[in-house]
């Protein structure tokens, strides 16, 4: 033994080397302690007490101190400590309350030296004086601390904590006479070893038991304590009152805490429950551990830095019966895995973005800083000159808001609110919706509406008033939907219309020059010219030509036509009369002429669209001649709705579905429709468009949808006269037999929207109440209540 000691002493001067390694123990460990030469470690537990030497590659068992045929309870260790001045001196705390010292220098196999049986219950902790060779301190479950002089047979002094169990005792490293003790009731006491009668100082450090404490190796005033409340606190004991310097929040109760050598702000912790890992914290960044060791499979019970001046080697013992040496450079760093960015797409297209400030700064550092000048609010850095620690991190939070023009979801809200879905003839609905879409700059959608009008407002389906108008539209619009693929193929087959076909070719070239909106307009043109296609006369064609110009927004023509456009019903009967007397054979000629006529009337821009309409005309004519019903297009319409839904514009799909109703419903399976409805209603509710959402629910034909607003809506109403709850029988009060829904302003029964104050039950017509509240905030019924309406 002597020889071994010498060898290891010689080692202690050199640099420590080693690797992350572990060895299996025979039994769970309760505590470990390192010899001052940093080459040996003692492991103690309920049924283990061994000394291992720490070699380059492995642990080697050197000595088993647990000898004797019948192991006594004295060998069941709760704690072990190796004297930091004498390599041969060890002390253990036994679970039966005995404090045992061991002398490795004894020649016999049994190294047991002295036995102190003064504590009545388990001794939780033993501690040697850092500089005095013979002074040993113990803390026990029975609430007493005892100081032993190893040269005597019994304790020198006994300290009573006046409370429950002592969990830890630690001599101050700097103050010769001072030691700290921690208690199960959350207190920490500071004692002068010369004054056993009462403690120097006491304060409550934790909520619940304080399991451990550790004096800072350099800062004489700093004491770290760890408790069951999952916190590690660092106290400055030099001030008059213990001052909490730092507070580290861990994820489990703290069983051990050890300051890291040579790193002023680092400490290592382990837990006695749930969490098997060992963490190293920088107390200045109290939320994220600086390093994490994940080797153990069960609770870590003992940790010790291998050498008091080497920060990179940590030893640990665990309930999983293993002893580990951890290298700091092999530790996993939770900071590295911590997500430095947050991102969220908002409803209105805004993006919320939080990023680590250093990341953002690094980004902008790469290029000239002009970006920041343009947006002065951008990632404003919190400048904190007092910030001494580079590891501290903070984030910049900003919300990128869509500029109104930049594709925010405003169009969705506008569209939802302005679309007309019911209550008017189909053609008008389509026109109206097309207009809404165009005004919002959504030309494709506008064109789709126009096409739909043309397709479905056919003679069989619409009032005769709209007859030729709609027919013309139907044919032209169906064609673009079909991608104009068979325009050429079909037209030649029609024989007599070859001439038109040619003109179509011209029109093509012309329309190619037009922008998308112009092409939209040409469709409108088409519809009229086609109207002439169907038996009509010049007059009709002209009149519609003017309407076309209105679509083209030609100011000269548009204004005079406006009244007619606003009140289309007036125009229709007129046409109707004309329609009835058309000379059939002339229609070809009509078509040939009509572009010229309109061209002469309008300026050059309208000419091209006319031509294009012309070309389309011929085909439409053919379709009409062969009596293609609107059903012919239903496949196309269905595909179109699918297309919109796939594009994410479920609004369009549902709107068309509602507007067209039976015409298209049968072609789309129930489940898809239901999905569209639910998606659209969900979107509407997100934007808080409750009214639109309710309208959509009402107009839907799907059972699953229409039942949505018939469920789980209950209003509890009080009678406005007798103030008693109304029964479910409607609007006559059971008790006073008067109508409950009288308007408090005009004293008439309210039918329709009834608004009332939930405080006094009085209310009335929405308009009346609103008007009343402009003048007074008191109840119009005169009850004196200060009404509140949300």
């Amino acid at each position: 033994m002597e020889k071994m000691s010498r060898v290891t002493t010689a080692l202690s001067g050199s640099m420590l080397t080693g690797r992350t390694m572990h060895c299996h123990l025979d039994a769970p460990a309760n505590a470990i302690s390192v010899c001052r030469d940093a080459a040996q470690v003692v492991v103690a537990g309920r049924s283990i007490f061994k000394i291992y030497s720490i070699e380059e590659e492995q642990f080697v068992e050197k000595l088993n101190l647990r000898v004797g045929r019948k192991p006594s309870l004295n060998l069941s260790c709760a704690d072990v400590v190796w004297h930091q001045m004498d390599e041969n001196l060890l002390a253990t705390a036994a679970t039966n309350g005995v404090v045992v010292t061991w002398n490795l220098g004894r020649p016999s196999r049994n190294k047991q030296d002295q036995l102190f049986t003064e504590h009545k219950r388990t001794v939780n902790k033993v501690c040697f004086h850092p500089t005095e060779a013979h002074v040993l301190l113990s803390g026990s479950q029975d609430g007493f601390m005892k100081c032993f002089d190893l040269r005597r047979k019994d304790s020198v002094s006994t300290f009573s904590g006046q409370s429950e169990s002592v969990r830890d005792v630690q001599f101050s490293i700097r103050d010769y006479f001072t030691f700290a003790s921690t208690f199960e009731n959350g207190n920490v006491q500071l004692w002068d070893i010369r004054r056993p009668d009462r403690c120097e100082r006491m304060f409550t450090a934790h909520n619940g038991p304080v399991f451990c404490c550790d004096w800072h190796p350099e800062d004489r005033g700093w004491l770290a304590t760890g408790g069951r409340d999952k916190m590690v606190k660092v106290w400055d004991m030099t001030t008059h009152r213990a001052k909490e310097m730092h507070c580290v929040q861990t994820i489990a109760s703290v069983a051990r805490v050890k300051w890291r050598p040579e790193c002023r702000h680092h400490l290592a912790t382990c837990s006695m429950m749930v969490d098997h890992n060992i963490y190293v914290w920088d107390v200045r960044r109290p939320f994220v551990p600086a390093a994490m060791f994940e080797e153990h499979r069960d609770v870590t019970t003992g940790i010790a830095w291998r050498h008091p001046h080497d920060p990179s080697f940590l030893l640990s013992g665990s309930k999983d019966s293993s002893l580990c040496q951890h290298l700091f450079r092999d530790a996993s760093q939770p900071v590295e895995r911590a997500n430095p960015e947050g991102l969220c797409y908002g409803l209105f297209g805004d993006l919320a973005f939080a990023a680590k400030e250093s990341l953002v700064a690094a980004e902008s550092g790469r290029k000239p800083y002009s970006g920041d000048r343009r947006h002065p609010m951008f990632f404003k850095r919190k400048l904190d000159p007092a910030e001494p620690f580079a590891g501290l991190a903070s984030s910049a939070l900003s919300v990128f808001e869509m500029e109104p023009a930049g594709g925010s979801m405003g169009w969705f809200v506008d569209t939802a609110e302005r679309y007309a879905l019911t209550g008017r003839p189909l053609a008008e609905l389509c026109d109206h919706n097309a207009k809404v879409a165009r005004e919002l700059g959504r030309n494709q959608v506008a064109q789709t509406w126009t096409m739909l009008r043309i397709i479905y407002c056919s003679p069989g389906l619409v009032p005769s008033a709209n007859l030729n108008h709609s027919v013309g539209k139907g044919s032209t619009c169906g064609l673009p939907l079909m991608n104009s693929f068979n325009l050429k193929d079909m037209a030649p087959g029609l024989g007599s219309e070859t001439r038109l076909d040619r003109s179509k070719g011209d029109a093509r070239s012309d329309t190619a020059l037009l922008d998308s909106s112009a092409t939209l307009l040409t469709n409108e043109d088409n519809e009229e010219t086609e109207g002439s296609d169907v038996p009509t006369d010049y007059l009709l064609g002209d009149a519609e030509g003017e309407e076309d110009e209105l679509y083209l927004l030609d100011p000269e023509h548009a204004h005079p036509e406006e009244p007619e456009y606003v009140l289309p019903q007036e125009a229709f009967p007129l046409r109707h009369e004309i329609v009835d007397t058309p000379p059939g054979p002339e229609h070809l000629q009509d078509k040939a002429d009509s572009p010229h006529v309109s061209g002469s009337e309008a300026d050059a821009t309208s000419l091209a669209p006319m031509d294009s309409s012309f070309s389309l005309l011929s085909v439409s004519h053919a379709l009409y001649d062969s009596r293609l019903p609107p059903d012919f297009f239903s496949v196309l319409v269905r595909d179109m709705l699918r297309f919109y839904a796939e594009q994410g514009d479920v609004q369009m799909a549902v709107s068309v579905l509602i507007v067209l109703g039976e015409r298209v419903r049968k072609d789309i399976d129930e489940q898809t429709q239901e999905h569209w409805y639910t998606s659209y209603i969900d979107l509407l509710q997100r934007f808080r468009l409750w009214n639109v959402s309710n309208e959509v629910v009402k107009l839907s034909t799907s059972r699953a949808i229409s039942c949505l607003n018939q469920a789980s809506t209950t209003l509890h109403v009080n009678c406005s006269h007798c103030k008693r709850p109304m029964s479910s029988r409607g609007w006559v009060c059971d008790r006073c037999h008067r109508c409950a829904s009288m308007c408090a302003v005009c004293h008439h029964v309210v039918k329709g929207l009834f608004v009332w104050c939930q405080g006094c039950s009085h209310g009335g017509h929405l308009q009346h109440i609103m008007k009343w509240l402009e003048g007074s905030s008191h109840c119009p019924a005169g009850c004196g209540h200060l009404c509140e309406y949300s």
Partner: protein
Amino acid sequence: MFVARSIAADHKDLIHDVSFDFHGRRMATCSSDQSVKVWDKSESGDWHCTASWKTHSGSVWRVTWAHPEFGQVLASCSFDRTAAVWEEIVGESNDKLRGQSHWVKRTTLVDSRTSVTDVKFAPKHMGLMLATCSADGIVRIYEAPDVMNLSQWSLQHEISCKLSCSCISWNPSSSRAHSPMIAVGSDDNSPNTMAKVQIFEYNENTRKELTSSGGPTKFEIHIVAQFDNHNSQVWRVSWNITGTVLASSGDDGCVRLWKANYMDNWKCTGILKGNGSPVNGSSQQGNSNPSLGSNIPSLHNSLNGSSAGRKQS
């Protein structure tokens, strides 16, 4: 096209997540300082903190809102290996007077053995469900059978994803015709592993069959698309509200936007830089080569084939 509004968040450590609520007028942030803050948008468009409280005993990685139909409910997940569900308490109190609201913990989900890295509520039509993913690569699906009782959650499914998961996101599309999709991002930083962004699809029909036959209920998952453009850890994935655009952000400091074209090929459609500066993305977009529709053999193959994603409706 964006205007930036900077907010003094006053978190004491890194902010790990930001989350808008259903209506886009509330925002929640969570941080390593173990707290969650709730922000309400005022009429003028400013964001005001209306609640801030300690939620976990470790870094809070994510915070997410439930559909308002279930109340004002938040879920958070943390380094402390738990996820928690929070509900805002309505009622008069001192907090109210100060313009602060009060949140109480309804449940703690403790199944994970490692850090829970993300938590997300499922689309409303699936009921009150939430998914968590953890650092050991396990995605867990919980369900509250009674929507009025937020304190009872049962673990429905555990899916092993093999890669350490950093983020998860349900596709918000509420279609019953095609399966729900979950996008999962990985913070695995080894270069040769699988793609860092994956879109999984869950086949409900198959699950029903399995259930009726008495077998274990399992999510039938197949990969719809995967991307590796970030060339680094992916921190975050997020869908737009129509479920057509997926945004992902990575350790390269950029946000990438993904969209499926008419052929269901997912392509990068835009790149945003963290400081708001535009990226001339044309060259970078040229590099994007998302590998599409490839099934990973270790996962259950769907009966529907590989690229059955959104077109199924």
